C-alpha cells in the first residue's frame, strides 16, 4: 500500500518528463486552435452563402462532425485515411481532428457573431461598393471579433482538455507519458496528480488570459486607422 505515500523524490524525478510532454499537449492545442478558427470561419462563411446546395451541404457536414465522437474522428483519420493513401503523423492527425471537430463548434459562434452586425453596416458597405471580401475583412469581422472571444476561448480550453484522446493514436502527450511512467515504476499517484495540476494551472491561466484579451479589446471592434 506504499502507493498512498506521496514521494517527493519521485515527483521531482518525473516532473521534467511530464513537462516536456506538456509541450506536445500545448503544441497540439495551439495548432489545433489555429486550424479550428480557420475551419470555423470557413464553415460559418459557407453557411451564409447564397447558393442553397452549398449552404445545406455545409450545414450537414457541421452537424455530422458535431454529432459524432471526437475519438471516432481521430481513429478514422489515423487508421482509415492511410487506406486512401494519406498517412499523417500522430501530431498532424491530432491537429487535423481537433481542428475539424472544434471548427464545427466554432462555426456556430462565428455565425452568431456575424449575425450580430447591424444591417446598416452591410448596407453602408454595399452603398460604398465594397466587395464581399472587403466587407467581411474590413467591416464585419473586425466588429464581430469581440463578442466571439469568450465562447471561442471556452472551446479552446475544452479542446485543450480533450488532447488526452490523442494518446489513443500514440501521441506522446501528458497523460500518455504519465501512464508510461506509472507502469514502468508501479507508481501512478504522483504522475497522474502532476498531470491534473498542470491541466488545472494551464486552464486557469488560459481563462484569465482570454478574459484579459476580451476586456482590453475595443468595444467598437478591431480598430482600423
Amino acid at each position: 500500500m506504499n502507493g498512498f505515500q506521496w514521494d517527493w523524490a519521485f515527483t521531482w524525478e518525473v516532473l521534467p518528463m511530464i513537462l516536456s510532454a506538456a509541450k506536445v499537449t500545448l503544441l497540439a492545442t495551439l495548432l489545433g486552435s489555429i486550424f479550428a478558427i480557420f475551419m470555423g470561419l470557413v464553415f460559418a462563411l459557407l453557411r451564409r452563402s447564397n447558393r442553397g446546395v452549398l449552404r445545406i451541404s455545409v450545414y450537414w457536414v457541421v452537424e455530422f462532425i458535431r454529432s459524432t465522437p471526437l475519438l471516432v474522428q481521430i481513429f478514422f483519420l489515423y487508421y482509415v485515411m492511410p487506406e486512401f493513401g494519406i498517412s499523417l503523423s500522430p501530431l498532424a492527425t491530432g491537429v487535423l481532428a481537433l481542428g475539424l471537430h472544434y471548427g464545427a463548434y466554432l462555426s456556430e459562434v462565428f455565425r452568431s457573431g456575424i449575425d450580430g452586425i447591424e444591417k446598416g453596416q452591410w448596407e453602408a458597405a454595399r452603398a460604398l461598393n465594397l466587395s464581399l471580401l472587403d466587407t467581411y475583412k474590413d467591416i464585419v469581422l473586425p466588429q464581430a471579433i469581440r463578442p466571439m472571444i469568450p465562447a471561442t476561448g471556452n472551446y479552446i480550453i475544452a479542446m485543450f482538455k480533450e488532447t488526452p484522446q490523442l494518446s489513443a493514436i500514440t501521441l506522446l502527450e501528458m497523460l500518455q507519458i504519465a501512464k508510461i511512467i506509472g507502469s514502468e515504476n508501479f507508481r501512478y499517484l504522483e504522475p497522474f496528480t502532476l498531470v491534473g495540476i498542470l491541466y488545472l494551472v494551464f486552464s486557469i491561466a488560459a481563462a484569465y488570459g482570454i478574459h484579459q484579451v476580451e476586456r482590453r479589446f475595443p468595444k467598437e471592434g478591431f480598430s482600423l486607422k
Partner: protein
Amino acid sequence: MNAPIIEFKNVKKCFGDTVIFSDFNFKVEENEIVSIIGPSGSGKSTLLRILMTLEGIDGGYINVAGESLWHMPWQGQYVPANGKHLHKMRHHLGMVFQHFNLFPHMTVKRNITEAPMRVKGISREEAEASAEKLLKLVGLSDKADSYPNDLSGGQKQRVGIARALAMKPSILLLDEITSALDPELVDEVLDVIRNLVKEDSFTMLLVTHEMYFAREISDRVCFFDNGAIVEEGAPETIFTQPKEERTKAFLNAYLGNNS
C-alpha cells in the same frame, strides 16, 4: 433635352404581401435636385434603396445614366443583373443614411478613405489627401483621427456625407439625413448640403421631413402617398398652392395652418 439620368418604368415592388409600388413611373433629369415628401410608409425610402441596389424590384425597368440598373443585356434580351453589373452601376450612386451607418471601428479619416482605397484602388496618400479636403468641406478637419462614437449626431452625419462624396458619385441619395438628429443639430448638416449644391452641380434625390429645406433647395418637389406620386412641381407651387387634397392635408399637418 438629354435623356433623364434616372427613369423608373412601370416598377413594381412588394414586401411579402404588401405592395409598395404597383406601377411606378418617375424621372429625374441630370443635375436636378428633387425632394420627396410624404407620410411614412409611402415608399419614399424604398425608392432610394432600390436605386442604391439595397432592395430589388419585382417588375418594370429602371434606367440610371443610360443603362438599365436591375437588368443587363444578355444574348439579345434583358435578364436580371448579376453582381458585376450592379457593382458597375453603383459607381454612379452615393447614399447618406438616416442612421449614419458609419463604421465605428474606423477613424473618421478611414471611414472616408476605405472605399476609395479598396474599390477604386487609389493609394492611401491620395485617398487621405482627398479625405482632408472633404473634411474641410464639412467643417470637421479637426476630427480626422476621432472615432465616430466620439462625435455628435450632426458631426456623424457630416462624416456620412463626406464618406459618400469620396466615391465621387454623380447621383447623391439622401435618406432622411436629419431625422435622427436633435433639432439644434439639423442646420449644421443642412448647411453642408447647401454649400455642396452651391459649389458643384449634382443630381440629388432627397427624402426629407424638413419642409423649409425642401422648399429652399429643390428644383422639384414630389409628394408621395401609397407608393405613388400624388402631386409634383416647383417647390413654390407645391408649398403655396397645392392642388390635391391629400397634399394639402399633409402640408397642413406638417407646417400648421399658416402656410
